[in-house]
């Protein structure tokens, strides 16, 4: 992985009337355009020569976003993606062909867009967003995210919010975020520190179905329970030294076979290959048309933000394509206690009789926090640490202890977790 150096693009070949369509929006203001907008050459030059934007993700949304940006005249586009191309991408990721399967998405997408839209510069990075320092993100005018991971979005959002320096206006980088699922999707404009941020709306996400271990182990009822049994309990038991790779068809085959056997034992119907794969990979249905709508919405907003030729989306567009063409545009409000962009401490009401373990469970269940396997400390003293193993062992006895014996009412707990791109402060309120 790393920056891939591509041959330097030729001097931008262009041609008369190339931007005849887009120019209609940049030559003249419309009735809703900000009075400060000045149509003409300056705004076009800024867009086509000076602008620099970052696209995160070169998958379903990313392919569309890159294409749109290139056609709209964005000059300098960077794209980050850590994935390689899979055959199941080809029903929507239209910059890839069967011969590209296995190659890095970012690189293939960049090459394709540059060959089809001459003069566009697309710089790919095949790797993780976390590899890049703040100074890297500082070079862009805005960031567009076309991701399928909540964790990556949270990281990007927290990074961009933390970068805001009130004395340096350019430090505020708009983040435009898109997401889809089947016929549904959403696009939003986040102005870090000004509008609601990604973390503010965490509780809007659908709660992921989590099957209790005891159901999986003892009382399976659904085919999903049998599949979870095979992947969560049986695989580590049979292959203690081999990590389950959900992209490996041999592994899926093994899970499918064992889940089927268990299902038959318990007279449960419905274990199929497709369901097995869907459950273990947490597959979300995805189609080209929905990605097109959401990516285009993101890029329309990027274009408006860069040129000021029309007012921006404030701040959330939600599409529900399952019943007619239905969408809803609204202003999502900031959360004063947002751990990323708000200032207020989050209160956590708990019962005195609760054990520390019960508190951790309650914390993991909170939809507005979504901390997986959190570690806790209070006033610099560790209450429970998930890692390293020796500290985990040392703090484990605390799990059984009652909260009333560990903390005082109003104490502020520091919570860290792999899924949290920041340290969270929680005020415990002890109740009877």
């Amino acid at each position, binding site marked *: 992985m790393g920056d891939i150096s591509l041959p330097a693009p030729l001097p931008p070949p262009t041609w008369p009337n*190339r931007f005849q369509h887009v120019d209609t929006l940049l030559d003249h203001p419309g009735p809703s355009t900000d009075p400060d907008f000045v149509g003409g050459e300056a705004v076009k030059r800024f867009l086509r020569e000076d602008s620099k934007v970052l696209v995160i993700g070169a998958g379903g949304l990313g392919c569309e976003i890159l294409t749109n940006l290139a056609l709209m005249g964005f000059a300098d586009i960077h794209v980050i993606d850590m994935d390689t191309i899979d055959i199941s991408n*080809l029903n929507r990721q239209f910059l890839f062909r069967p011969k590209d399967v296995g190659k890095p998405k970012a690189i293939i997408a960049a090459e394709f867009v540059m060959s089809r839209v001459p003069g566009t510069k697309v710089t790919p990075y095949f790797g993780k967003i976390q590899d890049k320092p703040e100074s890297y993100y500082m070079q862009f005018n805005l960031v567009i995210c076309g991701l399928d991971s909540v964790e990556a979005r949270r990281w990007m959002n927290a990074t961009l919010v933390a970068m805001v320096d009130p004395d340096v206006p350019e430090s505020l980088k708009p983040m435009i975020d898109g997401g889809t699922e089947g016929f549904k999707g959403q696009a939003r404009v986040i102005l870090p520190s000004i509008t609601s941020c990604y973390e503010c709306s965490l509780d809007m996400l659908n709660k992921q179905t989590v099957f209790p271990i005891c159901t999986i182990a003892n*009382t399976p009822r659904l085919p999903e329970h049998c599949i979870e049994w095979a992947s969560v309990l049986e695989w580590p038991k049979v292959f203690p030294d081999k990590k389950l790779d959900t992209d490996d068809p041999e592994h899926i085959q093994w899970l499918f076979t064992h889940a089927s056997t268990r299902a038959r034992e*318990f007279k449960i119907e419905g274990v199929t290959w497709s369901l097995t794969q869907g459950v273990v990979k947490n597959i979300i*249905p995805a189609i080209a048309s929905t990605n097109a709508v959401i990516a285009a*919405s993101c890029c329309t907003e990027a274009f408006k933000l860069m040129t000021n030729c029309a007012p921006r989306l404030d701040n959330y567009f939600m599409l529900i394509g399952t019943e007619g063409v239905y*969408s809803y545009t609204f202003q999502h409000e900031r959360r004063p206690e947002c751990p990323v962009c708000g200032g207020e401490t989050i209160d956590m009401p708990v019962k005195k009789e609760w054990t520390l373990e019960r508190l951790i469970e309650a914390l993991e269940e909170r939809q507005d926090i979504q901390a997986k396997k959190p570690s806790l400390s209070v006033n610099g003293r560790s209450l429970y640490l998930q890692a390293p193993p020796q500290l985990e062992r040392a703090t484990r006895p605390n799990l059984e202890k009652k909260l009333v014996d560990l903390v005082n009412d109003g104490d502020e707990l520091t919570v860290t977790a792999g899924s949290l791109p920041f340290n969270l402060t929680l005020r415990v309120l002890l109740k009877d």
Partner: protein
Amino acid sequence: MAQTAEAKTIEEATVTIVSPQGRPDEKTRRYDRQLRLWASSGQAALESARILVISGGATSTSTLKNLVLPGIGEFTILDHLPVTYADAGNNFFLHVNGIGKSRAEEAVSHLAELNDSVKGKADTRDVNAVLENEPEFFLSFTLIIAVNLSPEIEDRLAQALRSGASTPRDTVPLMIVRTAGFYAMIGTQIGEHTVVDAHSETPPSLRLDNAFPALLEYARAIDLDSLDSTDFGHVPWVVLLVKALENWKQKHDGQLPKSYAEKQELKKSLEKMRRRGDEENFDEAVAQAYRMWTPTVVPSETRALLSDPSVTTITSSSPSIFYFLLALSHFVQQHSYLPLVPTLPDMHTTTDTYVELQNLFRAQADREMLVFEDCLKRAVEEVHETWEERESLGLGRAEVKEFIRNAAGVRVFKGKKWGSVEPSEIEASDQKPVTALQNELESGMLPAPAAVYLAFLCSADFYSAHARQPQPTEADNQLLTTYATQRLANGGWNGELPETVTTALGEIARAQGSDIPTTAALTGGLVAQEAIKFLTRQYVPIEGTCIVDLIRSTTGTLPF
């Protein structure tokens, strides 16, 4: 290929024995993410579709991209124009190397690359000439998408499809698309359209307000007091609700609770059945308590559909769905509910109990399916077909089960005409947007599509009169204002043009009929979504005209 059992690895041997469905083939893997939405039945419908797109502009190719990728059967682009410099600038499926060549041919070759299993054809004739000389050409397609044509051609095309259809049911669906700057409009002309699977997110009713006899029997046989605490904690919530409700009914002349207070009282009596207070099965039961007092009914939309003449007066040539609906109307005359769908949600209980309960529901569903089949037999005989022919009529057992599973979501759209109206209807046709505009101004909420819709109409008026797009000049704005005033007056509007209308007119003039890549992509996505719904007969398609307003980042649908 002969192979001894010994020659197989243990894994292979297990697989052959264990799995009825093996690993997916390459096609299934490629389409995996969409098959999870519309399944193989939807995919088959797409693969047999023949789609015509008229003009090879940016919105056209953006739409087609989203249909070629999921694998429609074939597409044709009808366009007599050459690629211009502007086309090479706004269209991803045209290249500057192709300037001067046929736009249809260039676009088809770039689109066909996306999916080897889709056939693409370029037709370089002028749509005008085809309408003139060979109007039957259009009748050979499954769906037609007309993008940024003149209103006159749109009307002639719509007319050709109407007059070419032997029955309204056979009318080739037409989608009319116009784009201008940040605005787009999507209209339709469809004949009768049936949705066979709406993919409703409402789970099927378990009919707990009036448990079927076997379930009631089963619940009665469980004596809660005699259970040890483990078993007590594993009594499924379905059983708890049936028991709680039966107690209630015994004390209330068999009546369901009606008032809020009564419902709370019943809920409390359910809570009182707990032993410890933290039993998980009771938590679930309390959360599902509403099922006890929600009366099982035939949904009003289904009821309305069943009394529709298309259902009550079916003929032997009616599609199978109408036989099913007629049978359903017979069924609901005897029962006040739809046939049971045996989908049991997960619940806290043991495997054995869950499987037992599931079997109860399945057995009941099977009984009701047989009753439904009797009704179906009656329906078949009413149109003088014989029951023995059921398979060839598409009414086999598998289809019956499929219908029952989706029955609550079946919809029949009566269809909608597009286009020019008789002179005597002009006032009526302008009245609809005026009414919509009045509603918008009163509510003051977004989206506000009527003003943009009106701007599209006025832009078309302008084009008809001047054979060019309006420009952002004082003079053209004035003309647009005149057309708008005229249309509003026709529709009964008194007074000044509202600001929303002048704003929309200003934007339309600014746009000069431009096809912006992002607007094209967004519109192409929406059009493709609707096309997929029309073709698969799954999910609920648009009824009316959709307006995309990317100035305000909204979409809105007008009911006409």
